[in-house]
């Protein structure tokens, strides 16, 4: 097959969406479309007869679309086609395993993901932050702003969370777009995580507190997370009221500790929480540390397959349990 025969990923996604919708195999297709900004996409919902050519695929398709599946499918008998990167597919695998969505009602259009671009990192390398056009060619990000064209290495512009990605290719997939990239086995911690880990305990707590002091309790981290599908979150319960409406440190810490701990063995490190945060709280640091801890202690990674038993619902006699102490 000649190079000319290779379709652009967006064209391929559109063709799959058109085919699935026209054949009545799905009722809804969820992908990405460009906003008025060249560095922002937004979720795109297509029903039969909608224009599939609005669908795009580029380094700004960072949203984890799995978050919409529980909202839109839930107990409804609706069949959905969804675009999924490696991390998104792991979220989907989790949702299937946790009985939140039906595998049969889902067509997963998997993307071999090259990692998503952090606009802040791109902007930091430019003299003028006003980006007019972005092209991604062969590992390069070519940015035009005010007539100036800069070529940046893609690897320098990735989100922190994408740098150490172990599963760029979807783990559960029906239609794969692009060439599958092999899983990366070696643990690759990004510099933020490494830097955090070498600090003494008191300093780590201080970083934890100072990060969370920025929180404005908008709950974007929770709402952007596919794992956070509770019908009623503990943060919203009034009887008992676990959390006051106050954004003081004790309430904020309780909210985040509650949220983060519920991710143990479930977080797929997609970084949705950190990207959603308007207050620049480095939430990815904490969830990546948690996932690392799970990998190290239990040799476990979540979302590898829908059949995989859940970490917290299985017991292994060999599990480390040094935290169990004799009563004094």
């Amino acid at each position: 097959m000649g190079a000319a025969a290779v379709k652009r990923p967006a064209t391929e996604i559109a063709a799959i969406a058109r085919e699935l919708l026209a054949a009545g195999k799905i009722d809804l297709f969820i992908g990405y479309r460009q906003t008025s900004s060249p560095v922002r996409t937004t979720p795109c919902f297509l029903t039969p007869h909608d224009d599939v050519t609005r669908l795009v695929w580029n380094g700004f398709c960072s949203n984890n679309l799995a978050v919409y599946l529980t909202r839109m499918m839930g107990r409804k008998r609706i069949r959905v086609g969804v675009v999924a990167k490696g991390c998104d597919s792991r979220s989907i695998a989790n949702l299937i395993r946790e009985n939140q969505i039906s595998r049969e009602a889902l067509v997963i259009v998997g993307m071999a993901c090259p990692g998503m671009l952090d606009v802040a990192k791109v902007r930091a390398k430019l003299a003028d932050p006003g980006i007019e056009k972005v092209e991604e060619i062969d590992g390069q990000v070519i940015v035009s702003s005010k007539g100036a064209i800069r070529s940046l290495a893609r690897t320098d512009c990735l989100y922190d969370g994408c740098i150490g990605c172990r599963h760029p290719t979807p783990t559960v997939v029906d239609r794969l777009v692009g060439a599958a990239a092999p899983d990366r086995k070696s643990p690759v911690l990004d510099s933020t995580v490494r830097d955090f880990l070498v600090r003494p305990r008191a300093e780590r707590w201080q970083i934890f507190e100072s990060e969370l002091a920025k929180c404005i309790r908008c709950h974007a981290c929770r709402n952007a997370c596919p794992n956070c599908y509770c019908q009623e979150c503990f943060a919203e319960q009034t009887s008992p009221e676990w959390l006051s409406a106050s954004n003081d440190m004790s309430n904020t810490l309780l909210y985040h500790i509650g949220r983060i701990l519920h991710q143990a063995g479930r977080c797929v490190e997609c970084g949705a929480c950190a990207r959603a945060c308007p207050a620049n709280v480095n939430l990815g640091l904490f969830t990546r540390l948690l996932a690392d801890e799970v990998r190290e202690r239990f040799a476990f990674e979540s979302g590898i397959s829908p059949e995989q038993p859940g970490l917290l619902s299985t017991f292994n006699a060999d599990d480390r349990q040094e935290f169990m102490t004799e009563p004094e």
Partner: protein
Amino acid sequence: MKLELESGSGSILRREDLNRFLNLLQGSNDLYGPTRVQGRHEIRRITAPEQLDTRYANLAMSPKSLFLPQTETLFTFATGNRKTSPAAARAGSGRNILFGVRPCDAMAITFLDRIFSGEDYRDPRYAARRASLIVITLACTVPDPTCFCTTVDCAPDSEIGADVILFELPAYYLVKPVTRAGRDVLEAAASLLTGATRNDWDEKHRSAQNARQSLRHGFDPNRLTAKLGDFQAPYWEKLHRECLGCGVCTYLCPTCYCFDITDETIKSRGRRIRTWDSCMFPRFTQHASGHNPRPTQKERTRQRILHKFNYALKSHGRKLCVGCGRCIAFCPVGIDIRSVLKEIVES
């Protein structure tokens, strides 16, 4: 020099004198200004002028928490004795100088004034904080792509809500007192100011014109009001689909003011607090019975849009939006209010 309030009056401040200027204004007052925090600009209390950094299109967070704190104690109480003690209002007689807000955020303060310190109601705590606040606006020269102030009756050089406005020109600032309080506060820095000429004003007008021209109308504001009359319009079924229901747009909005009042009790002591709330949250309209009149994101999104662009117009004569663009820039899923309103206008 003598500072006048007449239109066209103003003074020149050399750019390199900005820090000295603010230092003089600060005197015994508290100064709040823009500083760079982890790659972006936020308003902080400034203790040394070197902390200031004015190279931003806009501040990441609106300044509203300075006069509408996210959590505020109204009074404390102890159960059993039926007595309450009002929380101490802010002590000190000094002024707070807020420097570096953009014209959109300054205009937004006048919206909040109308709610918390207007004809209908006057909140003593809010009013006290506002009375001590001097707003020094920094007019815009290079708006962000998410800015749309001119679509919603604001402008890159709007003076509304400012006590003093600074226009940033290539070699200097053109300083204009807007209110009497602004003129009074400028007296402290009179030694750094020289009279502005007609040329300086011409230059300011050119710069403001450039800023205006870089702004695009994302939707036709004149056709919007008539379109928003239909509570049952079919577009409400679609417009909310992307929305995750977080509070980013409302908490970052400089004009959103909705709040909740709750009690926090530990054993026999407690406090009644007023906290920010968001119409995007399920609990915002949750009744004690369990019924929720806005059960899904559809009704919540509709409420947010209608409040801002319809109800506020009817009850206050203005839209509850100044076009700062924070809801666009920070929406976790890239929802652009301009595109949403355009879809409504063109429906």
